[in-house]
Structures are given as C-alpha cells and as structure tokens.
C-alpha cells in the first residue's frame, strides 16, 4: 500500500539497467588475456592444454598466437597465427561459423583469408564477397592476435619468457599441419610441432563437434595427442568408442608427418 511512483520507478529501473550493462561491458578487457581456446567449440579440448606459451613469440623459432573470439551473427570466429622469427607463417581459423549455409561460406572464405594474412602480414585484408560477416569477425580476431604478437615481440628482453618458449631446441622447431580428413562426424585435422626430428607436441586444430561428438572429442583427442608424442609416428592405437575420430586423426597425423619430411 506504499505510495507508488511509476515515473520514478521507470527512471530508476532504466538507469540501473543501463549502468549495470555499461559497467559489465567496461570490466571486460579489450583483448583476451587468457587462453581463448578454452572457449567451447571444436578443437578446444585438444588444443587448449597445449597452447604454446605466448610470451616469447618472436624470440626464437616458432610459436602460435591465438586471437580473441569474435562474435558474428552466424557464430564465433577465432584466428590463430603461427609466427616464426617475427613473421606470420600461417593463419588459420580454429573456430568458424558452422551449420546450414555457413559451412559453405566458411569453406569459401576462410582459406582465402588465411592466405591473405600470410601475404600481407597484417590485418589489412579485404573481405571475401558473399561472406562479409565471417570476414568481419575474422579481421577482428586477427587484429587482436596481431596485437598480442607485437606485444610479445616487445617483450623478448625477458629471459624467463623466451626460455618458456623452449629457446634451446626451438631454433629448429617447426609446426606442420596435416590434411583435413573428413570423418562421418566431421573433419579432423592434426597439427604437430617437430623439433630435432621428433614430435614434441600434437594437437587437433579441428575435431568433430556437436551432439555426442563433443564428448567423444573431449574423450579421445587428448589421448591421441599423447600417444602421437610418445610413439613419434602415426602408428597409434584407436581410442575405443571413438573409432571414426581416431581413424581421421591417424590419417591427418600421417599426412603431417609426411609433410614434415619425417
């Protein structure tokens, strides 16, 4: 029965809502400080744990930098760069829109964008026509990756960081990405880091996602990665319950080894 003040209530509610949202937005950093691939989608379980330390990117050898997740209306885009001696040697989208017509658009645009990045060495790339949203998101994520890469480059003075990148053997380390192998549940693509003729790291940049695939991927990929490093070749055991994913993984791994000249 207290007196109601409708106008005051409306003003109060709007002011509280707007300032709450503005506050939340401003508390978020502009670039991603944590490993962004902890975000749900495809290759996450596989890649997240093995992200190379971003610190000494340009210090010695090869390292990877992952950009922020960019939201587009068709889904998220996230770019990862492989950097060797301060140059972008490879760009890839570890997350890109999927489903419906998005698959086509992604297939059409992402490879082109990847090439452009390596060619221009900057975020100043042209959008792929017919895929403006994906291109826009790609550029956003790319920009943040490049920012990080530069920040890391400026940091090379710090010895602890460069050793974190494993400078000792990193001089000869290189990253090779295998072919995309399509399985019944989705594409699998393996990337290995080879140093001194040995696989020092393996991860899946693409793996099946959606439905029960998420579980299977989370279950099998870490095991396969470990096995690949342990065995040093593509002769690894399939994970039971995830035989399609394992099969695809092995094929992609083999192709990566072939490329690495191992």
């Amino acid at each position, binding site marked *: 029965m207290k007196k109601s003040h409708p106008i005051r209530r409306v003003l109060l509610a709007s002011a509280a809502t707007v300032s709450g949202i503005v506050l939340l937005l401003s508390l978020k*950093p*502009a670039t991603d400080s944590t490993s962004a691939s902890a975000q749900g989608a495809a290759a996450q379980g596989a890649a997240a744990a093995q992200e190379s330390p971003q610190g000494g990117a340009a210090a010695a050898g090869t390292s990877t930098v992952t950009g922020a997740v960019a939201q587009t209306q068709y889904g998220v885009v996230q770019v990862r760069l492989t950097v060797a001696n301060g140059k972008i040697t490879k760009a890839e989208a570890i997350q890109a829109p999927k489903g419906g017509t998005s698959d086509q658009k992604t297939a059409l645009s992402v490879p082109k964008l990847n090439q452009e990045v390596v060619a221009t060495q900057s975020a100043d790339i042209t959008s792929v026509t017919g895929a*403006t*949203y994906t291109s826009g998101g790609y550029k956003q994520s790319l920009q943040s990756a490049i920012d990080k890469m530069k920040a890391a480059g400026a940091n090379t003075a710090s010895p602890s960081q460069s050793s974190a990148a494993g400078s000792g053997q990193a001089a000869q380390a290189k990253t090779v990405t295998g072919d995309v192998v399509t399985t019944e549940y989705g594409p699998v693509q393996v990337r290995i880091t080879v140093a001194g003729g040995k696989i020092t790291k393996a991860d899946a940049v693409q793996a099946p996602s959606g439905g029960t695939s998420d579980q299977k991927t989370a279950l099998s990929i870490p095991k396969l990665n470990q096995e690949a490093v342990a065995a040093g070749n593509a002769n690894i055991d399939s994970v039971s319950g995830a035989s399609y994913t394992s099969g695809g993984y092995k094929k992609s791994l083999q192709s990566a080894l072939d490329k690495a000249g191992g």
Partner: protein
Amino acid sequence: MTTTLAGGRAARRQTMRRIRPRRSPATLLLLAVWAGAVGVLWMWWHNTPSIADQNGKILNAGRITGLLAGYLMALVVLQMARVPALERRVGSDRVARWHAMSGRYTLCLVFAHVFLIMWGYALQAGKTLSDIVQQTIDSVNQLPDMGKAAIGTGLFLLIGLSSIGAVRRRLPYDLWYHVHLLTYAAVFFTFWHQITTGNDFALTPIAKTVWYGLYGSVTALVVWYRILTPIRLNMRHRMRVEAVIEETPGIVSVLIGGRKLHRMGAEAGQFFRWRFLAPGMRFSSHPYSLSAAPRPNMLRITVKAIGDHSARLRELRPGTKVWAEGPYGALTSQRRTRGKVLLVAGGVGITPMRALFETLPGAAGDITLLYRANTTQDLALWDELAKIADERGARLMYAVNSPDGERPDISAESLRRKMPDIDNHDVFMCGPPGFAQSVYEALRGAGVPARRIHHESFEM
C-alpha cells in the same frame, strides 16, 4: 458457525492459540529471482573473454539484454500460472502488480535486444545504423528460427501497446484479455532462436539444458494449474446457481450450490474466478470474493453492477452451471498477528470483510468492522452484519457521506478517538484505490505499523 466466547484472559489465550501468522514467501522469491539473474549474467561473463571494440560492446549489450529478457520472460509467465504459493500466500493482486511491472520491463529488454543486436550486425557488415532495417530483414531471412522470433516480437509489440494505461482503459476488458493471452504464442515463437542462435547456448551445453528446464517447468506449471486443476475442481464439485437475491439497488448476491464445497479448501477472505455457463456469459470469467464463509453445500458471492458482466448476474436463472477457478487470494486469517482486528471495507469491498467478520476467531470486543459507503442505503449486507456483531460482541461502525454530500472524516485523529488502542490492531482492508490509500495513510498516522495493514485490491 460463530462460537461466541466470553471475554476475559482465558478466552483471549484461546484466541491467540488459533492465530498462526504465516509469512509471505515474497522476500524469498525475490531473492531467488535475483540469484537467477546473477546466474544468467555470470554465464555471459564466463563465455565472453574479451570485447575488442565499440561494435563488440554493442553486440554484447544486445546479448546481455537478450539473455535477461529470455530469463525474465519465463518468470513473467510463471507469475500468471496461478501457482497456489503465489495466489494464496503472496496474494493475487500483488502478483498481478509484479506481473505488470516485470512484464513491461521485460518487453523493454526485448526491444532493446533487437535494436542492439541488429545495430551491431549492421556495423559488423560494414554498414551503419541507418541500415538497421535492411539488416533486420536479412537476419530474419538467413538465420535459423529468426522468422519465428520476428512473429513473436510482433506479438509482443501488440501486447505491449494494448497494455499501455491509456489504451487499456479504452479497450473492453475481454478484448484486452484475449490479446494478452497471445503472450503464450509470443513466448513460444521467440524461444527457439534463443537456443539456435544464442552464443551462450552454443558454447555452454549446460545452459541449454537449464533453459529447457526453466521453460519446461513453467509450461508444466501453467498446464497443471491453469488447465488441469480447474477441470478437476469442477468435475468434483459440479456447481450451479441456487438463487439470486437483490441486496440493495445495484447489488445482488448469488448463491451457488455444489457437492462437498468445504473440500475446496476455500477460506473467508478469498475469491474465485467465476464463469457462468449462460448465453453470452460463458466466454468471460470474473473474480468475485466469497461474501460469507463457505458452507459444505453453499457458497455466496455479492456483486455490485458496474459493467456488462456484473450487471447481468441478476438475470441468472437457478440451475445455471457454474465453472469456478480458485480459491485464490491471501487476505485471510493467516495474515493475522494480533488478537485485535480492525476490518475496513469501502463499498463492495465489504464482501471479503463480511466473511472475515463472521469467522475470525476472537473474544467479545476483539473484532471491529468499519464500513464506508456513500449512503446508508448502499450499506449492502448491513442486517446480517448487525446480527453477527450482536452474536459475537463485535463492534460495527459505518461512515457515510453527510446529507449534503460531504465525505465522512476518516483521519488519524478520528480513528484514534474511536479506537484508542488502534495501534494494537491488525487491519484488514478492501476498497477502491483512492479510499484504501487515504485510510492507509490515516492508519499509519494513528500508529499502525505498515506490516500489520493487510490490503487487497479489486483491480487487476
């Protein structure tokens, strides 16, 4: 019904033993609602590692408003599910006010969400704010479930417009009500795009489960309490009109018979929504309070003719089938915390007060009824009130306009003069908003704490 208790300490103790105030769960519910909102914001926070630029800020503001709107939407529907805890413990009128308030707020969030998201996408595609309409059309055409979402948003717009005060007052109640029922369709249509295009639901499978759980349980509650419960009630009790009695000019009582009516669990002070299955009346149901304590084979309502439906009740024939939903309302003896009670009735607000006057336990002198009407002729049910007062040793007072039309003086001073111990009373009050407001202020002035003034409004 009325066990007249002699005055004295023993009688008072006996009264107090029967007073078991139950706290309204309102505070707890509000806390739960806030906790849920925090959970929703946390999900956004968790799924958003960084926001790169201005465009990202706009899109994320759109996501936050969308998530909150999706969350609140379920609760806005829940408030109208006629859940007994809400209707009987918080009170139907209060829940209806919550519903109106949170409904307006939620619709504002929905429209803000649409605007922000479309603006953000337009910028992302290299266009500007002025292309927002084209962007919206594109998105509706290209994204999954966005066609449905567009239909739902259109319905929300219609519902929102029809509920703006000035518009609503001009619309017939039934038209407004049926437009309002479209909310269910609107919620259904807008639900799916949340799941299929919502970033947070794609990224967090648990969130998807929680969302299905939230909307699923609200749907279940609506089906259970708005459809199945009334069907069961009416199958069991089979109510019919027994008689229609004119009380004063313009006020009639309707006696309703049925089977085992005491098993409905209705209490004095509560109301039902009544639908009389007579030609021209079967499509609308109206809330009327019980104007006497329920008896095993008889219920009574007393209605003042103020419009279409209420005026036609006098034409009801005995034997007409009645479909009732209820009991609802929290203005019952459970609110009581004190031995002494003052009942205040304004006009036809006498109905629940009449039932409470008869049944509230109390010794002689514990219960007082103050009845306000325009003239003594308008004091409906006066004779029976006088009889109850006599039998129980309760006090009965009335206040009417003076012959030259002047309003009676109901102020803090006059109340204290009549009842020196007024600040030691629980007050139950029912009457038109202006009257209730002025009495409320007078009571507060006379020293009655707000938590002991229990009020119900006939406006919903």
